[in-house]
């Protein structure tokens, strides 16, 4: 985008967006150089909730890091649980019982819906619509109640174990989940799409705003709905199948418009796809144990291991390097929003402040995950 008038550098001013600002959902700071309402330069400043999880990982044994994973992306904590469990299982060569894999997928997908609902609520809040927030929270509450029953917590789950999950699901959870699927399916068209998606003001606000080309996505390593909104058919669940995803029938929504509306639609469609996944997984749920026999103290072989999962925000990678000891020698987390946000400076240049915030909302930022 180009500025409508020729820029005079003596007339710009610096606006500090954050670290305390209603639109940054956390403690992100963006240093904006503004020309009136237009952004000349945008530099995100990170690190306000940096907790050095990667160092903490090197301090304890493998199992001790599991609770930390949920503290990064608190909206899709179960995917972070799963990602860490997967890489350690890969390194230690642990087989996961089938029932545990199904339970993992069901809970992760429920959590993904909860994350998308909260994104939807917060995005609309960014655009000045407060009412959708409460509708989405109503539905999200159902998911949290369901997950609380089996995982024991509502936000920062520590549900996965190496070789399985900590707690089996029961019939009440299954019927509750089926009821929830029915409920959300009946509410999606009226409360979500009629009221919000088809709203002319919303469409005008986010259509053709925040244009990210597929090439830009690749250069910056953007993944998740940000990439899929730019016509890139990339989802770790399909491209690099893990767990039981290959056995389930679901689609990856891809939109070619490259704008904020495309990313919005990707997430809305993903909610429906996640419902499909959960439904199938519930139908196919096998009997059996939910936890494999695993030694108390893991000592994976020396070597380099990488595994990726798809969180609500994109591809989460764990780069694990073991030296044969009982602690991870090095655990690096590739958090999706870190890469997604690195696009922001380039794309926001020349945008209006209001549009840039709508664009930032469409990136679905979770700051603790960026800062780790």
């Amino acid at each position, binding site marked *: 985008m180009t500025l409508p008038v020729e820029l005079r550098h003596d007339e710009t*001013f610096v606006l500090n967006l954050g670290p305390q600002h209603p639109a940054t959902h956390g403690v992100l700071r963006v240093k904006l150089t503004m020309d009136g*309402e237009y952004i000349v330069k945008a530099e995100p400043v990170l690190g306000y909730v940096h907790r050095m999880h990667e160092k903490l990982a090197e301090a304890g044994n493998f199992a001790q890091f599991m609770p930390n994973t949920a503290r990064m992306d608190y909206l899709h904590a179960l995917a972070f649980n799963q990602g860490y469990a997967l890489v350690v299982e890969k390194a230690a060569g642990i087989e996961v019982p089938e029932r545990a894999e199904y339970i993992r997928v069901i809970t992760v997908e429920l959590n993904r819906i909860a994350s998308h609902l909260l994104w939807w609520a917060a995005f609309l809040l960014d655009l*000045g619509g407060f*009412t959708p927030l409460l509708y989405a929270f109503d539905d999200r509450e159902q998911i949290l109640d369901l997950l609380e029953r089996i995982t024991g917590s509502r936000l920062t789950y520590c549900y996965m174990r190496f070789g399985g999950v900590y707690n089996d699901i029961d019939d009440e959870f299954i019927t509750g989940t089926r009821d929830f699927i029915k409920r959300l399916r009946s509410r999606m068209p009226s409360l979500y799409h009629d009221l*919000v998606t088809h709203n002319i003001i919303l469409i005008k606000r986010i259509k053709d705003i925040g244009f990210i080309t597929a090439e830009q996505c690749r250069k910056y390593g953007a993944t998740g709905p940000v990439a899929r909104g730019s016509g890139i058919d990339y989802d770790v669940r399909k491209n690099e199948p893990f767990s039981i995803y290959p056995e389930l029938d679901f689609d990856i929504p891809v939109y070619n418009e490259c704008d904020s509306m495309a990313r919005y639609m990707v997430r809305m469609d993903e909610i429906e796809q996640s419902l499909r996944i959960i439904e199938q997984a519930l139908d196919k749920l096998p009997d059996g144990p939910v936890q494999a026999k695993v030694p108390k103290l893991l000592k994976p072989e020396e070597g380099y291991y990488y595994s990726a999962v798809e969180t609500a925000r994109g591809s989460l990678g764990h780069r694990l390097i073991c030296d044969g000891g009982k602690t991870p020698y090095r655990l690096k987390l590739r958090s999706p929003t870190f890469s997604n946000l690195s696009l922001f400076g380039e794309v926001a240049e020349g945008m209006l402040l*209001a549009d840039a915030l709508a664009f930032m909302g469409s990136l679905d930022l979770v700051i603790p995950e960026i800062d780790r």
Partner: protein
Amino acid sequence: METSIWRPILYLVGIMAFAGLNAAYLGWCERKGAGRIQRRPGPKEVGFAGLLQPLADGIKLMTKQLMVPQGVDGIIFRVAPVIAMIPAITSMVVIPFSGNIQARAMELSVLLIFALASLGMMAVLLGGWASGNKYAIISSARAVSQNLAYEIPMLLTVISIVMISGSMNLRDIAIDQQGGFWHWNIFRFENGHFLYMWIGFIIFFICSLAETNRAPFDMAEAESELVAGYMTEYGSMGFGLFMMGEYLNIVVGACLTATLFLGGWDCPFGLTPGVWWFLLKIYVLIFTVIWVRWTYPRTQIYRLLNLSWKILIPFSLVNVLVTAALIKVF
């Protein structure tokens, strides 16, 4: 007109009471309405159905300290919230609540109200400027450009009303519409022509939303962009006065809409007219304003200005010309 000393005192007390009650309880109505729209009960803890909530809020605001940021123009900073309140209350002087309840029936009352509305904009400008905060300054700049843009179509639609009624006195305009809803300006027939004033009514309503900085046009206090806009640095009753000023502006806007388009205190079915019809009309309008706010997301400043300059102003100009032609030429 009576010259007794009691009349000004009575109206002073009456208008202040009406303004104060509205300023306080519209906040409650808004929160209750928002709650119902969002499928939750809204305030309900303080008093029956939360009816004492405005009182609690008022006490809280009044007991807080008014912080004046360092290095700002303290006088302007303190005066700005007061300026936000005064024009709104003053406007009520010329509002005809019914045939016999009106403080002053001035000949140019329409003009007076618009002059005062522009003064209200000054409060936002001064408050934002005196805060010495970048968000507040952006917000003030937005508020001024927005108000300027929307005053033009608003005045143009009022011109067509004035042409129909042949008067700039709100009382005369209201009297001109008596006798049932088919006499109201919104459904006006003149010389056997239907005047399409409902277009003017819609333009006027949109403009009054924009003039009072209400969602979806609340650009000046867009909280997700500008934190709280011109109110960012205000706390305590400074903030309280801005809020009350905003609600009073809504009331004045609704009164004006009701008087100009909806027959003032006239009964829709030609029955007994009276003040209750007027109040009913303004509260229906105010409810619509609240309803819109909690249903729509916010638009964007340049789209907002485009809407005014490229759509509303041409439409209202055509409206004036067509009305003039229908009344005078054909």
